[in-house]
């Protein structure tokens, strides 16, 4: 394990993972491997030959239409679903080979999960719900109550410890869900559409809350959402799924600028590029052009810099990285095209 520290190994690594639902998954799988276009009767292929690596501290957002297999993929990663073929390594360990005790141990120590419809225990109050995973691993009562109190305070539910889920709003219930999933200090955090059951205002608030937590906690996060805005606000990388296949897995900029397939292109066609594209991603090399005047911060999106771009009069504007070093030049006309929505 010592050299793992030097060269980062992926926290999660999927190799050709398949998940087929139906009466005889193995037979269906064999048929599909023989013929790519086979659609075996009575079987649903929820995850189709997926390989991906997720690095420590990375946040991967999984997107796709309803039924594209997002939830199933994540449930395979936590082994709530057994995969049909392939292997999933968590910190180098094949979770398919874990026995029941090993799996329970893994979940108790390494994983947390937040569910779309919360999955709270109705007969326990907020505090006892958060303490549940600690109780499962046999932590003494006083210690786990203490920790659960901390977690509730962290998600802003101080003072509501003795409330029952029924007595709380959707947003507050999901905060309990989040606190519960964090109580065991997991390294890997799964969130399956955590905010989609909430109304837009509360969703926004929860996203901000989430960003705050994310910044504080430095976890490896796999986040499912339907909402592109949400994805853009949060993601390091986005994986786009269709019919169980991962069509593309890449940074938001590259997904928009260089869609790997027609499907991804159509999927991203509707969104406002100016909000996605970062100045740094759009800038070309300096290539000997004159650098004069103030540089734009590369980490911001075109939308963030809209006013400056419109008011600026230079044709080529220098772009700097966080340290102030000039990394490239942005062509203003192109940026304005994108900003005004008539880019080709």
């Amino acid at each position, binding site marked *: 394990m010592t050299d793992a520290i030097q060269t980062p190994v992926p926290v999660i690594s999927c190799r050709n993972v398949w998940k087929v639902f139906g009466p005889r998954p193995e037979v269906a799988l064999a048929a599909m491997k023989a013929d790519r276009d086979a659609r075996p009767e009575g079987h649903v292929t929820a995850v189709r030959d997926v390989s991906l690596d997720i690095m420590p501290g990375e946040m991967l957002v999984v997107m796709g239409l309803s039924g594209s297999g997002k939830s199933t993929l994540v*449930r395979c990663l936590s082994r*709530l679903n057994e995969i049909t073929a392939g292997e999933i390594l968590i910190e180098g360990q094949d979770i398919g080979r874990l026995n029941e005790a090993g799996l329970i141990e893994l*979940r108790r120590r390494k994983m947390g*999960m937040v569910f779309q419809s919360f999955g*709270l225990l109705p*007969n326990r109050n907020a505090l006892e719900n958060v303490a549940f995973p600690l109780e499962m691993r046999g932590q003494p009562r006083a210690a786990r109550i203490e920790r659960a109190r901390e977690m509730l305070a962290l998600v802003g539910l101080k003072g509501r410890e003795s409330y*029952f889920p029924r*007595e709380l709003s959707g947003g507050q219930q999901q905060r309990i869900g989040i606190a519960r999933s964090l109580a065991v200090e997991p390294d890997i955090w799964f969130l399956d559409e955590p905010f989609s059951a909430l109304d837009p205002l509360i969703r926004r608030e929860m996203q901000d809350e989430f960003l705050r937590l994310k910044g504080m906690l430095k976890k490896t996060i796999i986040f499912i959402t339907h909402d592109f805005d949400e994805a853009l606000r949060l993601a390091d990388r986005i994986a786009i799924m269709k019919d169980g296949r991962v069509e593309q897995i890449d940074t938001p900029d590259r997904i928009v600028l260089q869609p790997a397939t027609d499907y991804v292109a159509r999927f991203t066609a509707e969104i406002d590029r100016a909000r996605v594209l970062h100045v740094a991603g759009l800038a070309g090399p300096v290539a000997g052009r004159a650098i004069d005047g103030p540089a734009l911060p590369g980490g911001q999106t075109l939308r963030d810099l809209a006013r400056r771009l419109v008011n600026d009069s230079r044709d080529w504007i220098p772009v700097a990285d966080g340290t102030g070093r000039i990394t490239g030049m942005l062509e203003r006309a192109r940026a304005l095209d994108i900003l005004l929505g008539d880019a080709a």
Partner: protein
Amino acid sequence: MSMVDRIDLTPPSPRLNAPILMLGLAALLILGRAWLPEGLPAGLMRLPEALVVPFADWINAAFAFLRDDLGLMEVTRAFAAMLEWLLDVTANILYGKNRWPRLGPLPWSVVAISMAALGWWLGGWRLAVLAGGTFVWIAVMGQWQWAMETLSVIVVAAPFSVFAGLILGIAAWRWKGVQRILNPILNVAQSLPHFAYMIPVVVFIGVGPKAGAIVTIIFSVPPMIRMTELGLRKVPEEVVEAGRMGGATPWQLLTRVRLPTARGDILIGVNQVIMQCLAMVVLASFIGMPGLGQKLLQLLQALKIGLSVEIGITIVLIAVVLDRLSRAWAKRQPLHHALGLSWARRHPVLLIWAVAVVLAFALSQLFPLLAQVPRREALSIAAPVDMLVDWLIRLVDPVTTWLRWFLITWVLIPLRDAILWLPFSAVLIAVAAAGWAVGGWRSALVMLGFIGAIALSGWWDRAMITVYMVGFSVFLAALIGFPLGIWAAGSETRANRMLLICDSLQTFPSFIYLIPVVMLFGVNDVAVVMAVVTFAAVPLVRYTIEGLRGVAPELIEAAHMSGTTRRQMLWHVQLPMAAPVMLVGVNQSVMFSLFMVIIAAFIGTQDLGQELQRALSVSDVGKGLVLGLAVAFMGLAVDHLLRQMSERMRQGGGA
């Protein structure tokens, strides 16, 4: 279905015509019976003696083997001994039976206060008044001893049933095999009349309180199994997965996640156990169970109306209290306490209860009337009730006498004769045809199996008498129940009020229904029919209301917009949509009637019920079980038929 038939251009297959052919055959047999000079061959009229299967002897042999050779007797006796010990303890505490721990009877005031406190805690002051008041009534009316005899059995039996039901329910949920075995057993068990349970128990245990307790336990387990299994299946998948991700082991998942989440359903099961226990304890008077039921039986047989009304009121009150309390418990949702409240502020009911109980103990030392109300000093409403009833009877006597005469001479006897006149072969074929018509050849076979088994048992005539009583009663009940339900569904408040009445009526032990009819009609077939009609009308009213109120409002609005009149709305929109639900009501109505007809048999009918009671009095297990199964099979046959119909209606979009 009709759409499909019309589109289908191939010549109609013979399968479709099978029911009509079979009905034709049945009609031919009946015509032959009517017009052939020498009648039908005897073999078509009734099953030849030689073919009757001696099921009863087989069962008796099996039981003898179980009892004598397997030594099961020892086991059951041991279990009964433990039960008896428990019964003695509760009997000592509740009404001072001279047994260990000899603490003597609790003062009635203490019990009443405790029940009121329980009511308050579970459902507020109304329930407190109801629960407390009931026990005050019992004490004041001098029925303490009998009521406590009855309750002591429930106190012991219900926990056993709940525990057994929980274990079996979990097993059925966990293992498919167990579920596959249990399911048909439960189906039969839930349609076996009460008496069929008593006979084997009498054989193994004898008569008396412990036999009563055992019958009660066995009888009340099935709903607990069902509700436990149902509740566990209903636990949302996400809650379970959240538990899994929290690192719960399978055992932790069951005990900390699944069972607590299924709490509501499991407690509804407990409610049903308690109500079944009460119904059975009252009836167990037939096998020497002392208590309210026995008293009621004696008084009814002696036609002492006033006193039986007193007991009847007590039984009804107890039923309502037990039902409301256990329901309130099931519905009770946890609530948080404000921060920083003292223990006393958080548990006010407990505190007040403790104080009141101490006070009651002290006061009952000073005033013995607060401990026990002797019979001499008890109140009674029997005399005024008797007077009122006498007056009432004199008032309605011309009507009831005429009704009795009319029903017996012009309806009941001709009907009975007609149904007995029918050749059994024709009935069997007609029943199979009905099965075929609603569910294809499979259903035909199912129906034939159920009804054919009754023929094979050799109890055809008795069974037909039961059929005629049930059939006629359900018909009358439908004449009352459907219009009443339709009327009540007309307005929200009326509907709610009627549903509340139905709910209460359904909690009463069936025995209660005999009091008013015996009062009005005396002891004969008409009284039985009337009791059954009242009992069977309740589910009809209830499901009619629920069916009609369950019709989607958009549908009604759409119909309004296309200009339907009230009448058209009812006949073309509401009733067709509500029909599947109403059929469920009919189904329950038939079940209730079957049970009631059998219970009412001691008034003097000549059907299976009378034979069952004879079998009970000589503890003939074989005969008793065969008769019980015959009743169950009738119920199951009707159940199958109506279920198929309701299913088809639902799929056909209510058409």
